[in-house]
């Protein structure tokens, strides 16, 4: 499912991502990739959202958009919250689209180095 710029209640209230006719337009995975780097997501989650010791894997199959948005805005865990003032709803929607675009990895059983 493609993500649209109607990113949660706050985004809807702000009218973000809504086309003049009222419809929502698709977020951009390409822009999202740039925003993902610009806002520092890669620092803990890796350039492909693979995660690591400092941050959970975000892709493939990111969590539901509402939960993703709520966590980014209000995290009280190891990740600091990203308020809208520093990460716009547009950028957040694009980042989510980027994470959705990341393909599944190969089965580890098909990777010889992971079966030594």
């Amino acid at each position, binding site marked *: 499912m493609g993500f649209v710029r109607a990113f949660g209640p706050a985004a809807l209230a702000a009218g973000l991502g809504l086309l003049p006719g009222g419809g929502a337009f698709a977020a951009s995975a390409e822009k999202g990739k740039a925003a993902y780097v610009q806002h520092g997501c890669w620092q803990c989650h890796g350039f492909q959202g*693979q995660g690591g010791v400092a941050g959970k894997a975000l892709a493939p199959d990111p969590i539901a958009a509402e939960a993703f948005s709520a966590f980014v805005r209000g995290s009280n865990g190891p990740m*600091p919250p990203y*308020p809208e003032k*520093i990460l716009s709803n547009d950028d957040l929607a694009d980042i989510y689209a980027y994470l959705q675009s990341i393909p599944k990895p190969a089965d580890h059983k098909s990777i010889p180095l992971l079966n030594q």
Partner: protein
Amino acid sequence: MTRKVPAQKDPRPEVSRRKFLAGVAVAGVATAVTPPVANAATQATSTNASPARLPSALPPTMQVAAAETATPKELPRIGGVPGSDFMVDVIKTLDIKYLPSNCASSFRAIHESLINYGGNKMPEFLTCTHEESAVGLAHGYFKVAGKPLMTLCHGTVGLQHATMAIYNAWCDRVPVIVVGGNDLDAAHRPPGVPTFHSAQDINAIVRDYTKWDDTPVGLQHYAQSFVRAYKIAMTPPYGPVAISLDAGLQQEPIQKNGEKLYIPRYVASSPPQGDTGAVKEAARLLANAERPVIVVDRAARTANGITLLVQLAELLQAPVVDMGGRMNFPKTHYLSRPPTVVNNADVVIGMELSDFWGVVNAYIDNGEHGIGINQSKIKPDTKLISINSSELITKANYQDFQRFQSVDVSMPADAEATLPALIEALKSAISNDRKAAIAKRGEAIKKAYAEGKERTRQTAALAWDASPISTARLVMETYAQIKDLDWSLVASSGNVSNWHQRLWPMEKHYHWLGASGGYGVGYGAPASVGAALANRDLGRFSVSIQSDGDLMYAPGVLWTAAKHKIPLLAVMHNNRGYHQEVMHVQRLSNFRSRVANLGNDMGPVGTSIENPDIEYHKLAESMGWWAKGPIKDPAELGPAIKQAVAVVKSGQPALLNVWTQPR
């Protein structure tokens, strides 16, 4: 028992260093007008020179002609047996194989004695380009060899360079014998630079993180102090020690005042063992626990420590969480489990933990006012047992003792020394009716272990073909090329998400050596070289995961490795930044609702190492290493490592500059 020093009898006149220096000045004037005297080889000062010959019209004899025309023999400018020769005699009784050091005038006398009188063997001088490298090298060496090295440094500026590495050794419970040269006599020491490089008490700067220090004022005092320092350093809990070595004491000849110098015999102290009653109480709690967990950090000081921990764990069928300060427990054993198992424990025994509070609590760097959130990970009635020798050497200033954690049984004792008694007590404490439940517990853990391994491998497959190269791929490409060798992972600086700990079949005590101890960055490169030196002598293959930030603190240690032919494979985790710090600045930006200023880099200003990118392969090549890079394509990594392994097997160090994902 004492040993006489054969070299102490000397027929030559005694010469005070202070008087000698004055005499040299006089002699310097005298030699301008007086021809040298051939048979004056044993005479040291102008006051001992031969009387002037009477004028003669006769042709000179052959002897006189030779004396007047031949190249004059060099006179020993300092008579007698140098005090620093005796110092070398003392050092040689302690089986110290190497002496990594950056040369300095304040220890020139002992330096000269070590290489000329001592033959540059036991110890062999290793030329270092930074004192921090010298101490770091000794740090890594000990963790393989189990024997300490000594280092010499300027007591002031050199020791200042060395301090961070000494702090790491202190926190990591590693013995290093640090000897600082210092010229105490303000009235006679050379003015200018040597006086800038002198101090009243050089050891003051490291006293908070050394086990002991001294400033010997005589040679016999030195002999006692050096042997005592070695003994204290080598008694668990191990730790660095410092000796201030007066330049005058080094340089002056041994005084013939009737006192016979002797070298005290070194006898190792036995490690402190836990109290019998406390051991029994710990065994009782563990035997009756439903969900016991063993947590270890620096518990296994030797290979036998691993064997003992396996015995304890199997007896209890309890999961073991290895915090990684040392190689404590085989990664291939089904009882090896992640830290999350602590959450459900009813009894936790922690052995040589650097931070017990951190094992059973969580600190989250978030919250309303920037002071963080504290959360307990364990249930309120969980019983805690601690065996920790660090309690015996706790000091006040530096906070390496971490937050205070109340425990139910506390043994300030060495864990490895206490394990045999604990195992025996546990055998007695486990009743027959508990044995079936314990065996059943083991079966459940075996299943969880297998499932965990499967999940870990699938997680490692994420971003497998990414560029920059994923950290999982970095470590597994490396392992593929060394797995058939007798390998030793000597250090892993930076953060590669612990993939080596999660995926490499670490079993032997040298498969993993732990980290820096004090988290002082700059440990990885020198400690790797030191450990590789010890492994070289044992015929093992050394590999390190070398981060970019760590290498740039004192890269000159690469030259030391090449000069002294220390084979080491350094595979770089070059993520082009200080990633431990990147998120700190990002976090504070978020807390303050400010967009982080990246400048022209990827991370917040001040946290990136890019623009320009450092060509570490060229840096290494310039210091005599075989090197290749930058490697960004994961498909090129395996063949490059294969090439590098061949180079290292031939006896050379090799470095691969690999561009990696951040963590």
